[in-house]
């Protein structure tokens, strides 16, 4: 069975596309699926850092596209997860080095060998974004519960629909349950009402994400991390499992739960 190409995009920068790509890939590989991530952010490459593989880059995506190496030579295999591979981006070039057709051709080759091909899209709506969605079978839009991120997500969803790659699915990242409770942050329902697409998953704000990134270790491999758990659930949903969403209530402490039982309001 040929593999599925999943593009992770957002419009807005800094909402967590690269983190999501790395962690969903790690979670899928942990489940035994053969996964390759492709960093389509030419000129501003980050995926290699998040996966902790930057020291092993010899060839990159632009080398493959321009024929300086074979596809196999650009694949970096993760030593922790033998089913996880990376095709890194080029840091010294820019988005015009690759075209949408190049991406489609590359992914057609990758489909033969991998169950999942995850494409980390750059921010924006121009060439880099178009490169990233050209080969997509499925698109995930990442956003934060914050007005400018949601506005950009709406724009990008419209563009995805226009390119007939929809319907996209939503990954709501960095939700802070305390801020939602105190009325200082949009909740999932607010965001879904605005964007009107299906929800793939919610990843809560979690310090362990930053810690893991600095260590080059995907947080999805951290059993104790709530964000890691969310990414693992998302991977399971992508594989067709029906995994219920972890509600806000479940993430609060025992004392607070007891408080509510005895009638103490928040």
């Amino acid at each position, binding site marked *: 069975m040929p593999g599925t190409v999943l593009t992770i995009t957002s419009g807005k920068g800094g909402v967590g596309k690269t983190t999501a790509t790395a962690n969903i890939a790690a979670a899928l590989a942990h489940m035994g699926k053969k996964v390759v991530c492709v960093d389509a952010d030419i000129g501003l490459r980050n995926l290699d850092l998040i996966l902790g593989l930057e020291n092993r880059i010899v060839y990159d995506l632009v080398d493959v596209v321009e024929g300086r190496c074979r596809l196999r030579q650009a694949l970096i295999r993760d030593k922790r997860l033998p089913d996880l591979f990376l095709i890194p981006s080029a840091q010294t070039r820019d988005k015009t080095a690759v075209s949408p057709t190049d991406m489609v051709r590359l992914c057609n080759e990758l489909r033969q060998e991998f169950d999942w091909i995850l494409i980390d899209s750059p921010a924006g709506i121009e060439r880099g974004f*178009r490169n990233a969605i050209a080969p997509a079978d499925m698109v995930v839009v990442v956003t934060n519960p914050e007005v400018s991120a949601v506005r950009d997500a709406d*724009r990008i969803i419209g563009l995805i*629909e*226009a390119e007939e790659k929809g319907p996209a699915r939503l990954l709501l990242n960095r939700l802070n349950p305390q801020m939602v409770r105190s009325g200082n942050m949009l909740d999932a329902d607010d965001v879904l009402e*605005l964007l009107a697409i299906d929800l793939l998953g919610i990843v809560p704000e979690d310090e362990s994400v930053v810690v893991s990134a600095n260590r080059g270790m995907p947080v999805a491999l951290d059993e104790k991390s709530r964000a890691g758990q969310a990414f693992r659930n998302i991977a399971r949903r992508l594989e067709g499992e029906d995994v219920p969403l972890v509600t806000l209530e479940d993430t609060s402490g025992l004392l607070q739960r007891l408080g509510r039982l005895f009638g103490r309001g928040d």
Partner: protein
Amino acid sequence: MAEAAPKIDIKGIREGLLVSIGDGASWETAEAALLNAIGKQADFFNGARVALDVGARPLKAAQLGKLRDRLSDFGITLWAVISESPKTQETARSLGLEIHLSKPRPGRVVKPLEARAEGEEALMVRRTLRSGMRVTFPGHVIVLGNVNAGAEIIAGGDIIVWGRLKGVAHAGASGNTAAVVCALDLSPTQLRIADLIATAPPRRGNPTPEIASVKDGQVVAESWHGK
């Protein structure tokens, strides 16, 4: 049975190059002829900004999107698609392409539209308009869906949104102060009727259907009670 290849005409204009595809042949033949012509002069086209006249052909997003990609392989930026077909115009707009050759000058916020609406022509939009989408029409515009913040409607006549209006709505854009804007939830970023501009105050409580119109030289919104 081979189709006769359509004529490909290339002209230099102020905004770059205008490439016109002659009528008659199917889109597949026309696209192949176009790419062939470009391939023969690849160096000339590399780095060019191209406006494409496709004649009366109705084109879907997948077709235009694919062509744009192929053109970008040659280093060509497709910035406009000119066509008499409303379907192609709509497709081009949704892909962020211009449909006119000369861009309107910025500066004056309100410009008169060429409103030649025969009778009471209305454009029906059966979808939610997402941020960045724009609908322009000389007559009335009716939207069956929401108009998200960042979306715009510019109508020579009235604007009716059967949903939430959160974007920008400009009714009576050709100077008609009798135009109205109605919505089930009237919460626009900005509302314009003719050359008057207004913003909505923050909403208190649940939204109810409202109608905005010009009264005594001001834009006022009132609850819709039915007439």
